[in-house]
C-alpha cells in the first residue's frame, strides 16, 4: 500500500518548539470533534500535556452512527488534517469539492458502477472457506464459520483497483490529463498504470531506484501498460524518496496533474476519498451476509499496512457496535526486534505524509525504516482513521510475524486452493489466535485483499517448497 511521503511535512520532532514528543491530547468525553479556531496554516501541530487514555465506548452506537468522520477540516479526533505546503492547499480543496459533488452525481455513480462491474469484476464473492473452517473446529465440533471476501479476484489481483478507478474518474472530471503516483513494490503503480491505460491518461510512476531493481518485473509490467516509470536516486532510493519526488512533481504541475494516492493516509481529503472508494467492499459484505445467513458478520478481520482494505471492509460496520473490527499489522521479525511495521502497536503520534497519525519514529522524531516480508505492509505510518478507531476502542489491532504470515500463506493455499497475498496472510495468520476464543458458529469475514501470485518467489524461497 504505497503512500505519499512528504518530506517537507513529515516533521522531525526536533523542528517543533520545545518538546520532543508530539503527544495525544486528552479526550473530551463528548463527541464534539474538530477544533474550532484551528487555523489552516501550512504546518501546524498540537502541543498537549498528557497522553490520553483509550476511550471506552461502552457499546454506545450513537457515538459512531452520528459521528462525522472526518469532520469539516479533515480530522478524525485529533488525527488527520492537512499538513502540506501552501501550494497544495487549493488542489486539495478542489479535490474535496469535486469529490463531494460527485457523491450526488447520478451519471458519475452509474459510470463508476458499470466499470466496477465490467472492468474490475465486482461484486467480489463472499466465499465460505469450508476446509479452513474445519481446520479451526475444536474437538467438540464447535468453532467459528470463516468467510473470505474475495478481493483477490478483482482485475489486477487486489482491492487497490477500487480506489485507482474512482480517483482516475475523478481526475477526468476535473479535466486532468496527467496522473502521477509513487510506488514501493509496484502494486499500486501497476493499478495506477492499469487505470490510466483504460482511460487514456498519461501516467508517471515514481519508484526508488533500489526498489526498481528488486521489483524489475513490476517495472516491466507498468511499462507494458504504457506508464513511464521514473527512477529516484536520492536518499535511500526507496518509497519515501519516490514520494518526495511525486510531491515535487505535483506541486509544479498541480493544474494538469492528479496525484493518485494509494491508501487511507495523507492530507485531507485523501483518507476520506480512498475510504469511500473502497467502502464498496463492506457494503457488498453486508448484503451478502444477509443473503447467506440472514445476519451481520460478527467479526471482520483485515491486514493493515496503510489501512485501505481494512477501512474498505470496516467502514460500513463502524456504526454497528456488535460487529468486532480486528486489524492485523506486520510484526516482521518480531515486536521485540527493530524490524517490524507494527505502527499502531509500537508507534507514537506524529505528523507524516501530511496528516497526524501514529507512526514509527525514534526519539529524535526520525522515521524508522519499517520491515515486513510483505512489501504492502512495509509502511512506517498508518491510516489515520485506524489511529482514531484504535484510540476510541472501536477497533482492535494485533500483529503477525513474517513467519506466521508465511505459515498462513501455505495453509490457505493447501486447504482452499487460494493463494493469498503475503499482506493478506497476516490477517489469515491471526486466525490461529482468534478462533479458539470464538463461540460456536461465530461468523468471521476475512478480507482476502489480494492474490499471492506476486509473492510466489518469496514464499518458495522461505518455505522451501
Amino acid at each position: 500500500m504505497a503512500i505519499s511521503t512528504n518530506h517537507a511535512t513529515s516533521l522531525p520532532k526536533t523542528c517543533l518548539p520545545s518538546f520532543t514528543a508530539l503527544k495525544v491530547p486528552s479526550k473530551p468525553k463528548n463527541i464534539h470533534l474538530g477544533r474550532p479556531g484551528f487555523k489552516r496554516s501550512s504546518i501546524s501541530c498540537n502541543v498537549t500535556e498528557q497522553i490520553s487514555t483509550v476511550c471506552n465506548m461502552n457499546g454506545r452506537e450513537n457515538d459512531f452512527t452520528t459521528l462525522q468522520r472526518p469532520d469539516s477540516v479533515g480530522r478524525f479526533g485529533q488525527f488527520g488534517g492537512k499538513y502540506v505546503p501552501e501550494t497544495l492547499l487549493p488542489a486539495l480543496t478542489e479535490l474535496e469539492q469535486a469529490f463531494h459533488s460527485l457523491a450526488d452525481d447520478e451519471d458519475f455513480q452509474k459510470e463508476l458502477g458499470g466499470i466496477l462491474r465490467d472492468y474490475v469484476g465486482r461484486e467480489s464473492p463472499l466465499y465460505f472457506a469450508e476446509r479452513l473452517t474445519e481446520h479451526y473446529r475444536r474437538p467438540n465440533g464447535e468453532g467459528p464459520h470463516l468467510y473470505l471476501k474475495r478481493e483477490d479476484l478483482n482485475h489486477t489481483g487486489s482491492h487497490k483497483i477500487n480506489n485507482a478507478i474512482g480517483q482516475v474518474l475523478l481526475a477526468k472530471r476535473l479535466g486532468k490529463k496527467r496522473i502521477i503516483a509513487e510506488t514501493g513494490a509496484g502494486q499500486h503503480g501497476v493499478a495506477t498504470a492499469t487505470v490510466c491505460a483504460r482511460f487514456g491518461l498519461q501516467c508517471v510512476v515514481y519508484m526508488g531506484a533500489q526498489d526498481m531493481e528488486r521489483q524489475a518485473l513490476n517495472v516491466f509490467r507498468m511499462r507494458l501498460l504504457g506508464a513511464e516509470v521514473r527512477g529516484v536516486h536520492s536518499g535511500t532510493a526507496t518509497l519515501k524518496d519516490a514520494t518526495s519526488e511525486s510531491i515535487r512533481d505535483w506541486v509544479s504541475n498541480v493544474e494538469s496533474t492528479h496525484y493518485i494516492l494509494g491508501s487511507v493516509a495523507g492530507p485531507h481529503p485523501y483518507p476520506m476519498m480512498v475510504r469511500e472508494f473502497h467502502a464498496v467492499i463492506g457494503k457488498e459484505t453486508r448484503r451478502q451476509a444477509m443473503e447467506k445467513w440472514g445476519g451481520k458478520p460478527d467479526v471482520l478481520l483485515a491486514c493493515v499496512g496503510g489501512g485501505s482494505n481494512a477501512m474498505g471492509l470496516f467502514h460500513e460496520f463502524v456504526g454497528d457496535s456488535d460487529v468486532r473490527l480486528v486489524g492485523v499489522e506486520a510484526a516482521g521479525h518480531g515486536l521485540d526486534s527493530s524490524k517490524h511495521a507494527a505502527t499502531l502497536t509500537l508507534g507514537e503520534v506524529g505528523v507524516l505524509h501530511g496528516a497526524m497519525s501514529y507512526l514509527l519514529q525514534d526519539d529524535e522524531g526520525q522515521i524508522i525504516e519499517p520491515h515486513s516480508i510483505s512489501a504492502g505492509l512495509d509502511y512506517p505510518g498508518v491510516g489515520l482513521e485506524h489511529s482514531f478507531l484504535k484510540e476510541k476502542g472501536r477497533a482492535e489491532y494485533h500483529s503477525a510475524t513474517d513467519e506466521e504470515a508465511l505459515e498462513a500463506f501455505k495453509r490457505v493455499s493447501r486447504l482452499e486452493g487460494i493463494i493469498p497475498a503475503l499482506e493478506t496472510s497476516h490477517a489469515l495468520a491471526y486466525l490461529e489466535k482468534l478462533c479458539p476464543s470464538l463461540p460456536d458458529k461465530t461468523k468471521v469475514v476475512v478480507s482476502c485483499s489480494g492474490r499471492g501470485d506476486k509473492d510466489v518467489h518469496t514464499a518458495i524461497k522461505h518455505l522451501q517448497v
Partner: protein
Amino acid sequence: MACNMRTDLLAGHLIGKRRTGDASVVRAVLVDRKTIVKNILGSSNLIIRTLTKPQVETVERDVSKGRFGRFGGKYVPESLMTCLGELEAEFNSALRDTEFQAELATALRDYVGRETPLYFAQRLTNYYKNSKGEGPDIYLKREDLSHGGAHKINNAIAQAMIAKRMGRKSVVAATGAGQHGVATAAACAKLALECTVFMGTKDMEKQSSNLRLMKLLGAQVKSVGGNFKDATSEALRDWMGNLESSYFLTGTVVGPHPLPSMVREFQSVIGKETRRQAMERWGHKPDVLLACVGSGSNALGLFHEFVKDKDVRLIGVEGAGFGLESGGHSATLARGDVGVYHGAMSYLLQDEEGQIVRPHSIGVGLEYPGVSPELSFLKDTGRAEFYTATDEEALDAFQLLCRLEGIIPALEASHALAFLNKLCPTLPGGTKVVVNCSGRGDKDVETLFNHKFHSM
C-alpha cells in the same frame, strides 16, 4: 512394425493413406479389426476395439456416442473402455442431480468468481474504427478474471467434484501452459484430493511461474521430456495403472468419449452467460464470436451455446508460430490431416509417415498437435471458420490490449485479439463482436521479461 491405417474403410471420407511408425507416443490407429495397434498409449502392443462397420458420416452430431460426424469416438484399449463407460454414466447422473448442480453453481459463483463480465472495450473499438468513424463494437468475455486466471477452472472444479462423487482419492492431470495444472491443483486443494500433474520439461521452462503455483497449492508436479503431448501420454499411462483410485482430470476437449463432451459441457457456461449478457446489453445475440484455438476448450465453451444460431458467426484462431510455411506452428485445422490421436479421431499435425509433428507457438497453451473433434466437425461442415495468427501478430495484439485497455491478456488469447486486425475492416459498423479473453497474461510477463521483450 509399421501398420497401415486403412483410411478407405472410413467411407472414403478421410484423406490419403499413411503409415504409422514406432514411437513412444500415441499413434494413429487402425480401423481394421484384424490389425494390431502399435503404441497406443506407451510402448506396449495393445489390441484396441475397432469399428466393425464402416463409419457412415452423419450430418448431425451423434453426441451420445461421442461422434461428431466422423470425428470423435473412443479409440482406446479395452481396459479403458469400462472406465470411460463408468465416467460417462457418472457424468450423466451428475448432470441430472439437482444437488450436484447447486453445489457446482455455488462453487462457480463463490470460488471461481462467476459470472465473468462481458466488457465493452471502448478504446479497442475506437482503434478499429475506420476513417468514417464506423466499425464493430468489441466486447471481451472476461475469463481472465476467473480464479486462477483462465477459463480452465470451470472444468477443473466440476470434474474434481465428479471425482469426489465417484469416491476417488487422487487426481492425475497433464498440463501444457500450466493453467490447467494450476486450476486442477487449486480444485484438488479445495476438495481435499491428492493431485499429480504431469508437465513437459520444455513447458516448465517457459511457464515456470505456473509451476511454482502448482507446488504451492500442494500438487506433485512430475516432469516429462517434451511438451504437452508427451505429458498427456504419461498422465494417461499413470492413470491406467491406478484406475480404481485415481481420476484423470482432462483439461480440454480432446481424448476419447466422454472426455470432450464433459469438458465442453462444463465450459459451456461461458456461452450461456454471454447469451444472457448480450440480451441485457443490446437486446440481441452477438454477431461474431472470436476465440483462440489450442485444443479448443475456451472456443467451444463460447461457441457451443450458439452453434444452432446460424446467424452467429463462429471464428477460431490457431497459432501460426513462425509462419505456416515455416513448419514451426500449431495450426492443426489449417494444416493438419485427419487421424486418431489420444483416443479420438480429429485433425492432427502429422508428417507423411504419420509421426506427430512437434507444434510451436508463443502461446504455450496453443501448442497441441491435435484439436477437438467437435471443432473438426464444425470446420468440415462449414459452421465455423478457422484462421491463424503468428507469434509476432500475437505479441502486437498483446501489447495493444495492455496499452488501450489496461488488460494484460494471455498470449493464447492474444491470438484471437490479433485476428481483429483482419476481421474488423470487413465488418459493418455496429457489428457485435465478442472475443473470449480466455486468460490473463501474468504468466507470460515473466517469460517476455526474461527474453527481453524489445518494444519497450
